[in-house]
């Protein structure tokens, strides 16, 4: 599965400043592993040491929060768009 992933500004230093990357993955867990392979360091920013998604970062599959789907087992299909959205506090 070829998935488009939207990378938020704070994480673009891992993706050579790209706001959008294409990664393979049949579910969110595999997608995160492949993101880490292509862009080392990014997983640590997304997940706690035990692999659970951090509580101030959300992952959306086509506008739906994976916390309300099947978390990292949420399946992905060709053409899906995944967005990573962190909390931001500036004002």
């Amino acid at each position, binding site marked *: 599965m070829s998935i488009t992933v939207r990378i*938020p*500004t*704070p994480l673009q230093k891992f993706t050579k400043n790209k*706001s959008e990357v294409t990664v393979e993955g049949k579910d969110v867990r595999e997608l995160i592993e492949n993101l880490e392979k292509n862009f080392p360091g990014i997983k640590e920013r997304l997940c706690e040491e035990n692999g659970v998604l*951090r*509580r*101030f*970062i*959300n992952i*959306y599959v086509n*506008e*739906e*929060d994976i*916390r*309300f789907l099947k978390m990292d087992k949420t399946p992905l299909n060709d053409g899906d768009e995944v*967005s990573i*959205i*962190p*909390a*931001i*506090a*500036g*004002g």
Partner: protein
Amino acid sequence: MSLNNEQIERYSRQILLPNVGGKGQEKLLNAKVLIIGVGGLGSPCAVYLACAGIGKLGIVDSDSVELNNLQRQILHSTKDVGRPKVESAKERINAINTDVEVIPFNLRLTSENILDIIKDYDIIVDGSDNFPTRYLVNDACVLLKKPLSHGGIFRFDGQAITILPGESACYRCLFPEPPPPGLVPSCQEAGILGAVAGVIGTIQANEVLKYILGLGELLTEKLLVFNALESSFRQVKVLRDPKCPVCGETPTITKLIDYEEFCQLRRKETE
């Protein structure tokens, strides 16, 4: 309350709008809005709300105007550098419109004072610049069931969501906990394009106006995500979380929390 001739002229372009009219203008003149932070977000928000004739505008900020604020904080001017922000904000708001009664709070919000400050207002605007205040404001608004317009900005990105406690998802349904101090670059370290603050602060003003006028659809149950480099606006769904620590079925947060200050730079300044 009826509008005088000057008010009818001043507000004519919005009185003309379908579903606003004189009745809508009276609602605005009777409304009480609290803006937390009169910086990048609070400035444009306050300007539009002042222009629209919000009757009572509370403003909360403990900072003084610095030269580096003026790149985006459009309430303040060069002559204001060194003055408390709430003072220069009040002056500017009243220069725009004396119909607006400005209530300045030159203080930092804490778990001790926030409930007493927000209780008198119809809707709260969060334009603060740090996670501890944002979570404090969310939790306080949930506890007192006060509608909240949340806006956040970072470099070229902006986010906005409107929260109707008890009805729609709160900020903790979206992001249950703030990041630990030091993990996320904050405020002064990160940089911000001034116009991004203008876009999001103006969206917050628009949410407040719609809420008071009872018009359209609020940004509830969805997060608006703006990216300035692409000029893109996207929305993602935000559902109420039954396990939300503050507004869920069995809340674990029943009193307010003062989180540790995040921004190292700010900490140095206050030491």
